[in-house]
């Protein structure tokens, strides 16, 4: 059965046809054979019985008058029946009275089967033996026994079996031929459908179609439905491809636009860096020349104005530098690596040596983590935050600047806290805006770009920055580094 399961539909259909027709034929033949055999036997027994009665009737007087010759004569008439091999008449006691044998060597001189009145028969080996009681006026006078040879019947039966075999073979052949013809309309379309399905799934080729058979049956419907399905898949595939191509084209176009804008921005910052600085340098240079070379022609007011011009150009230069820095942060790619914030904070404080000269500052550097971030940009963050802290604690003695870490909502938060002049939380929304300042310039210098730069760097890292403060009670800046954070 397991082997049958793996047969193709063609093989299954053929086997089914052959098995069904073969079984029907075999059953029919078997039924006929049984019927024939029974019929043969019955007629054989009947004819033998008749012959035994005739022999018995004709030999009754011979038995009564003890005339074996007459009985032998009667028996010899059996020569006419070619199937009778031997026969005998016996006395009621079972003694042979007269014996006939077609072949004298094959003479039977005894009763082969027990006697049952009036007759008994039995198939023994290759022959049928029949015994019959001979009666005369109700009295048993003797017994007749006839042996009939069955070899002819057997030969007949064998011929019959031969014919059955031939008929069976011819029928099976015919069944095979018919099933082959019918396969063209059933198995073949299914096989082609299966092959098409294989091609589709293997090569992802949705343009192929299964050949539709001419017959209008379930198989035809199935194949048409399959082809329809393929057509739908193909249409969807094409639509998908088109959409993807369009999307790609759009992305390409957009990328090109972004690149063009970036290039423009870059050349803009380049001109800012290069061209805007030159006039500043000239103003400074020539103001300097004026002070040095024409000092005698200038009074104090003129010199004061000149100094203001020089101060303004310095400030302009600082603004340009800060703006360039901010633009640079925007364009720069992040190079993430594990950075020890503790070491970075120490480095920054060391670099600020010049700024903190003459100040009494108490540094409190807490236990700072190692974070995955861009070391250069993170240094700028710490520098801007710490120099802000130093700047706004100028009126304090001692100034206290604390750098540490805390946690909110499961996120690591780094903070920079000072005991400086703080600010009014009313203006906190302006804190990180470019050029926004919360203090007067004569109190605290600055361009208003530092915190904007810090915010841009933190955002670039996927983090968040915020601040808390109170006027005259210091400020605290908090930041996280979002998804780039290292544990």
């Amino acid at each position, binding site marked *: 059965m397991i082997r049958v399961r793996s047969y193709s539909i063609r093989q299954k259909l053929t086997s089914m046809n052959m098995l069904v027709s073969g079984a029907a034929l075999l059953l029919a033949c078997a039924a006929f054979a049984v019927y024939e055999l029974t019929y043969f036997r019955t007629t054989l027994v009947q004819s033998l019985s008749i012959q035994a009665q005739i022999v018995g009737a004709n030999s009754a007087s011979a038995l009564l008058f003890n005339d074996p010759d007459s009985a032998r004569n009667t028996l010899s008439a059996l020569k006419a029946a070619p199937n009778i091999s031997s026969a005998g008449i016996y006395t009621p006691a079972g003694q042979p009275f007269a014996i006939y044998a077609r072949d004298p060597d094959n003479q039977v001189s005894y009763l082969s089967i027990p006697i049952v009145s009036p007759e008994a028969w039995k198939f023994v080996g290759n022959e049928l033996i029949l015994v019959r009681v001979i009666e005369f006026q109700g009295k048993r006078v003797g017994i007749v026994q006839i042996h009939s040879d069955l070899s002819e019947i057997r030969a007949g039966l064998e011929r019959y079996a031969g014919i059955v075999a031939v008929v069976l073979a011819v029928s099976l052949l015919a069944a095979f031929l018919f099933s082959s013809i019918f396969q063209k309309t059933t198995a073949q379309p299914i096989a082609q459908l299966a092959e098409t399905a294989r091609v589709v799934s293997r090569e992802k080729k949705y343009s192929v179609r299964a050949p539709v058979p001419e017959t209008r049956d379930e198989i035809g419907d199935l194949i048409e439905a399959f082809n329809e399905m393929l057509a739908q898949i193909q249409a969807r595939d094409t639509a998908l491809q088109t959409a993807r191509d369009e999307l790609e084209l759009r992305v390409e176009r957009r990328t090109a636009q972004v690149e063009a804008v970036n290039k423009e921005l870059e050349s803009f910052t380049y001109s800012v860096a*290069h061209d805007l*600085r030159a006039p500043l*340098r000239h103003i*400074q240079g*020539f103001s300097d020349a004026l002070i040095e070379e024409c000092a005698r022609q200038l009074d104090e007011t003129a010199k004061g104005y000149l100094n203001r011009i*020089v101060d303004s150009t310095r400030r302009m*230069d600082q603004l340009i530098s800060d703006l360039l820095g901010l633009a640079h942060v925007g364009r720069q790619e992040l190079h993430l690596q594990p950075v020890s914030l503790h070491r970075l904070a120490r480095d920054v404080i060391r670099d600020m040596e010049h700024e903190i000269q003459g100040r009494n500052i108490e540094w409190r550097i807490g236990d700072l983590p190692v974070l995955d971030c861009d070391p250069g940009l993170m240094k700028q963050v710490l520098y801007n935050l710490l120099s802000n802290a130093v700047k706004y604690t100028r009126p304090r003695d001692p100034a206290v600047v604390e750098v540490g870490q805390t946690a909110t909502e499961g996120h690591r938060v780094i903070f920079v806290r000072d005991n400086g002049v703080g600010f009014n939380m009313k203006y906190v929304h302006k804190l990180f805006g470019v050029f926004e300042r919360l203090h007067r310039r004569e109190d605290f210098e600055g361009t208003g770009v530092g915190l904007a730069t810090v915010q841009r760097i933190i955002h670039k890292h996927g983090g968040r920055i915020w601040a808390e403060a109170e006027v005259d009670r210091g400020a605290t800046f908090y930041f996280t580094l979002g998804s780039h954070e290292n544990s």
Partner: protein
Amino acid sequence: MSSNQTEILLVEDDPQDVELTLRVLRTENIKVAIQVARDGEEALDYLFRRGDYSNRAPNHQPSLILLDLKLPKVNGLQVIEQIKASDETRTIPVVVLTSSGEQKDIVESYRLGANSYVQKPVGSIEFRQAIKTLAFYWTAVNQVPVLQIKDPVITR
């Protein structure tokens, strides 16, 4: 100009910058000859004795080239490339002196063989200091191989 006098080639298109630079050298009493080229092409003509400079004295090249990057005609980077490509001029120190502090410019200048890169300070004090230091270091402290020309220079 005597052939043994120390000379600086100043390649600068901005006349204000030229004047400010010359003023620093004058007021700081730095005794060098200054040759000014107003664009990259003029600088190359001067160095390779072409065009207006085809009759320039042979066997003499500036001890230092102060080179701006943003120049008309041939830009500063191209000038560095050509100076460093020729055996005759390769050993002349080239100091880029420009307003740009862009990493791109710094990296590219050094890649092409610039010997130094200085961003022009805006502050006049810092500017003076920078010019003074550069002139002193590259003409008085720094040593270059003595120029030896095996073949006569072919002039066109």
